[in-house]
Every structure is written in C-alpha cells, then in structure tokens.
C-alpha cells in the first residue's frame, strides 16, 4: 500500500507509520505486545516508552528481550547521565547487560538522594533547635544574676570622694548626734536614734560610727540648736582618744534640750524616728537642697 512505486512525488506516510506515531504518543499505556509482533515494527514505539513500560512489555513478550539492549543503553544515558559518565570514566561500565546496569544506576541514585535529603533534614532540625533556644521562654524562676550585688564600694575617683565628703558634712549638721568627723569613709544612716546609743556603745574604737537620724526630719530650729550645741561639746575633748564620752554626752544634750522645748515646738519637732516608718527614709532626699520641707526653717550654717 503504501509504496511509492506509483511514482508520485509526494510521500504520504504509510498506515503503519501513522500507527507508530499514534502508539509512540501513548507508549506508556501499552500493556502487552502479543506474541507475533515484529521487533522492527514496534521499535520506534519502544524508543519512546519509559523504563517501567519497557520492563513490563519485555516480561509479557520475552522474545523481545534479545533486541532491547540498545534500548536499555539509551535509557541509561538518558535517565542517569552523570552517573553513567562517572562509571565510564572509572572504567566500570559493563556493556553486556544494559538492563541491569539501568537498575543499578537507579538504586545508586535513590541512595544518593536519600543521603542528601537526610542531611538536609538534619540541618533543618538543628537550625530549628537553635532557634528554639533563643526564643522567649516562660518561667517563674529568676535567671542567674549577671553580677553579684555590689556592697558599699569605695569611691574610686577623687570627684566621688569629694561628693561623698560634702554629703557627709551636710548630713552632720542635720543630725542630732554629731559623731567625730572622719574622712575617707562612707557611712550608712541608721533609722533610729535610740538604737544608736547601744550601737555606739558597742563600737569602741572602730572607725565605724553610727550616726543618728539625719536628713530634714526634725524642725530645723531644734536641730540647729542641737547641731550647734553638739559640736561644741564634742570638739572640746580629744576626738580620736575619747569618742565614747563625746558620744555619751551627745545623746544627753539633745534629750535635755528636747525637754526644755515648749509643747508646740515639741510637736513640730518631729520626735525621734520610732514613730516614723524607716522605709520612708528611702524616699527622702539626702541633700537638703532637694528637700520639700518648708524652706523658711532651713538656714543651717552648712548651707
């Protein structure tokens, strides 16, 4: 039919070639080729089918297997080009059974893919873990302190020293009890004056001196009286030698002066600190300058 011996110039494709075309388009839908098909008839179709289809067709029509080695070779190179090249370079290529070679290559490829994917998975998991560590966590325990709470530190710089000294001197004039002035140390203010007495008694010659209540608690009039009176009394005796008698006399005089005051003054005097909440002192400015008490009363010589 389909021959050109009629002498026509144009070629109409043969029916067989039309069929081959259609079959090639649907090559992977082939399930079985039957027993009597010629290899060269079906070859163009087999060239277009996948490895699975080829395997299936071979299994159903075993006689085809003799001729399919070319097809398998083609499949090898098409599907796994890099691996085959690698093998060819190493000289490991076995040209006899291309079909088996194909399946070996397929396994190798699957293996490699598995390795790479597991590596990726691990990397991703590690990255996720690291991220989780950094995220905000809820807890009710305190985190470890970054640095230990510092106790009273020495004033490092000269400026700091000067500041402290000024502070200290100012404080002196506002307390009822005036300890001997000692340089170079900072002193903590204790809340209660009556407690000061036994404390002072206990500390004999130590430089630590407990000062009675400072700050602007007392009305300046009474305190000034005390202030003026006290230094007089303490300065006379030797300061370093006998701090004790001086301290003893100090509490006596303020008490005596207290009693001599009128009740009105006494009321305004703001008696010692027992009545006051010690915590309130936290919010009192240490400097008289920032005090919010009435300014008229404050006219200490220290200012």
């Amino acid at each position: 039919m389909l021959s050109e011996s009629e002498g026509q110039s144009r070629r109409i494709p043969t029916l067989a070639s039309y069929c081959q075309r259609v079959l090639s388009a649907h090559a992977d839908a082939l399930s079985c080729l039957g027993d009597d098909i010629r290899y060269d008839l079906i070859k163009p179709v087999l060239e277009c089918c996948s490895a699975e289809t080829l395997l299936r067709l071979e299994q159903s029509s075993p006689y085809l297997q003799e001729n399919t080695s070319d097809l398998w070779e083609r499949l090898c190179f098409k599907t796994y080009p890099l691996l085959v090249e690698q093998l060819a370079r190493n000289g490991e290529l076995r040209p006899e059974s291309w079909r088996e070679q194909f399946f070996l290559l397929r396994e190798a490829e699957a293996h490699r893919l598995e390795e790479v994917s597991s590596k990726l998975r691990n990397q991703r998991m590690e990255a996720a873990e690291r991220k989780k560590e950094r995220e905000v966590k809820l807890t009710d325990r305190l985190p470890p302190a970054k640095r230990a709470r510092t106790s009273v530190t020495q004033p490092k710089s000269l400026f700091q020293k000067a500041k402290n000294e000024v502070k200290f001197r100012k404080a002196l004039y506002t307390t009822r009890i005036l300890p001997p002035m000692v340089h170079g140390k900072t002193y903590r203010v204790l809340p209660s004056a009556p407690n000061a007495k036994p404390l002072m008694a206990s500390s004999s010659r130590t430089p630590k001196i407990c000062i009675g209540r400072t700050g602007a608690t007392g009305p300046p009039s009474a305190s000034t009286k005390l202030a003026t009176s006290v230094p007089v009394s303490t300065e006379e005796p030797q300061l370093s030698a006998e701090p004790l008698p001086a301290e003893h006399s100090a509490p006596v005089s303020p008490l005596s002066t207290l009693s001599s005051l009128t009740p009105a003054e006494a009321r305004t005097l703001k008696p010692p600190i027992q009545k006051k909440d010690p915590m309130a002192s936290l919010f009192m400015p240490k400097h008289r300058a920032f005090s919010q008490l009435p300014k008229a009363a404050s006219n200490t010589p220290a200012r």
Partner: protein
Amino acid sequence: MTTRTQANVSFACVHVRTTVDFREQNHSGKSDDWVKLVSSDGYSFLVKRNVATVSGTLRTMLSTDSTFREALVNTCTISERAVLVEKVCEYMAFKAQYESAGPKEEIPLNEFTERIPPEVALELLLAADYLEGEA
C-alpha cells in the same frame, strides 16, 4: 491454485448496490469498479477498485489477471475485525485521493493521525503491516 469457477450472475446476491449490475461493470472503467472487502466478523465493505489496490496485497488478490478466486468474485476476505478493516479502507481512500493530487496541493497529512484511535492502533499496525505487502 484456486479452482476456476464460472463467473456467473450469482453476483447479484452479494452486492449491495442495487442500481448497478455488478457483473457488467467488472470489466469497464475503474470509475464504477467496486470490490468488496469482508471482515472476519461478517461486515462487508464496498470500495472502489482503485482504492482497494492501494494495498499491494489486495491488489494481488483482486487482480483480474490472476486466477485467485477473490479476483473472480471481486471479494476479499480479510481476517481482521471490522473496525480495523474500516480504518484500512479509510486510509486507502485517503491515499487514493491525494495520490493524484498535483504537486502544488497541500495534503493534510496530520489529519489522518487524529483519525486513529489509540485503542486500535496496535492492531491496526499489525494489519497495516500485513496488507502493506507489495505486489
């Protein structure tokens, strides 16, 4: 060798075209020269002789020069299913039509590809191969 039978009027019982006396038209020009192709499942296809002879195999079988029985009765039995015989006839007609077309004419070659359903393509391939035999 096929047995020689008398070409007689018994043709009348087999042909379908009633308007034409089949026997008389046998030796006339090709324009009215019909042959019958019979499939394995009993279907008959009437085609013009020039169409049927596109197939080398059929041409041999139907050649009036031969002594084959088929030639005498202008009937060819093809051992394929009717579906396939129909497609073969279609192809032969397609080819016969465009064979005589001038060089300037466009042949819609791809048109025929669509006319082959994939389900029959494999069998059709085998049938086409068989019928393609050259004269």
